[in-house]
């Protein structure tokens, strides 16, 4: 079967119903592996055990950003093809992305205490992530204050695309300004600059978090589809009552 068939909501829920259990299993396994790797990862000679925060912090940050990317793609789907599934995808992604971003903020500031001697500094990277978090909250607020779902979807889509401008700012803030926060060392042109003993578990956790995101997102999308079915059924019942 092709992606086109997947685009049909009922078909989509049918397929996801079959895929989800496997995804869940895969996620658990990945976390097990990543966890073990993290446990055996060597402590940093100056950061000590706190370096292990990184194995949550970086994936969280990465997914916080990636979720907005997913929403932006979905936004295009909403505006250009007016596809209901795109609306659902966008709506489902927002809270998850917000959660990951918050996790990034929290772990980051926890890490900042030993490293920088403070929980929070108004440095470019940190602030741009905070802005991302605020944007997430804004989108969620949009979704929840508008009762008509299609209207909400389109408005949120416009807003998401505009907000996407923030993503490169986050990514390159470390290059553009001399921030306290350290620059990219994992993903960067000319290969990674981290010792494998750190890099391997980091990759492990990245995959685990990504799988987790996939699982949560698909599940949330299924719920949203069901919720909409319910709403339309109620509307139709109301109209029937009005006609009679």
């Amino acid at each position, binding site marked *: 079967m092709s992606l086109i068939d997947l685009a049909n909501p009922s078909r989509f829920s049918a397929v996801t119903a079959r895929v989800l259990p496997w995804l869940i299993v895969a996620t658990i396994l990945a976390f097990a592996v990543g966890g073990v790797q993290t446990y055996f990862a060597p402590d940093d000679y100056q950061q000590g055990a706190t370096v292990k925060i990184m194995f949550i912090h970086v994936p969280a940050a990465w997914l916080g950003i990636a979720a907005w990317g997913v929403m932006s793609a979905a936004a295009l789907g909403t505006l250009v093809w007016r596809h209901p599934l795109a609306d659902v995808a966008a709506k489902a992604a927002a809270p998850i992305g917000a959660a990951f971003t918050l996790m990034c903020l929290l772990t980051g500031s926890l890490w900042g205490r030993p490293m920088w001697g403070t929980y929070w500094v108004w440095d470019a990277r940190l602030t741009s992530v905070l802005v991302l978090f605020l944007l997430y909250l804004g989108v969620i607020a949009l979704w929840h204050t508008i009762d008509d779902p299609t209207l909400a979807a389109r408005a949120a889509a416009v807003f998401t695309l505009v907000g996407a401008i923030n993503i490169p700012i986050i990514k390159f803030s470390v290059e553009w300004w001399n921030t306290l926060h350290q620059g990219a060392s994992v993903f960067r042109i000319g290969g990674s600059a981290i010792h494998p003993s750190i890099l391997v578990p980091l990759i492990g956790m990245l995959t685990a978090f990504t799988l987790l995101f996939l699982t949560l997102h698909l599940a949330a999308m299924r719920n949203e589809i069901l919720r909409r079915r319910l709403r339309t059924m109620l509307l139709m019942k*109301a109209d029937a*009552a*009005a*006609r009679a």
Partner: protein
Amino acid sequence: MMQIAAEGLACNRGGREVFCDLHFLVSSGEMLAVTGPNGAGKSSLLRLVAGLVRPCQGRLSLQGGDPELSIGEQAHYVGHQDALKPSLSVQENLAFWSAFLGGNGEIAAPLARVGLGSLAHVPARYLSAGQRRRLSLARLIAVERPIWLLDEPASSLDAAGQRALAELMEAHVARGGLILAAIHGSQPQPAKELKLGGGPGVIGGYMGTIAQEYPA
């Protein structure tokens, strides 16, 4: 038995005189149809009676009725704007005005009467022009007040709606109510008529004179 008497009323708006030296007398069980060309001062007169515009001359007096309430407080004013909040549902809109204007919380019946029963839970934003008008007319039913001040109440109502409105007004007059209505063209029922825009107007046999504006 109520009576609204106007003696030598004059009204200025935006610095220009709208009408002057207006005399009329309406008593309960009567309907006074205020007619005249656009800009003659119909709405101004109604707003003046409702206490929303100050007369610059003359006096407006109410015999009978509740002495410590003003005319406006005993009257329904249905103007060109229907005081509806788009984001509130039809029912919420009516319920609020009923509560504020001192009606008995009965909502369903008035809504059904104006034919909006099935739209009770729709936001007022979604209403069509006629439906909005019907909703603002529902106030007349939801809250019992002796004096009705209606400014082109039939505008954007369909034939059925206009008939229903006419019945409503007849019933009110029959119940001993008192109506001042600004209307264009044919009035819904035989009534005293006050033609504006034709110089000083006198109506209702006040001061013993029957004006030539009296309906032939």
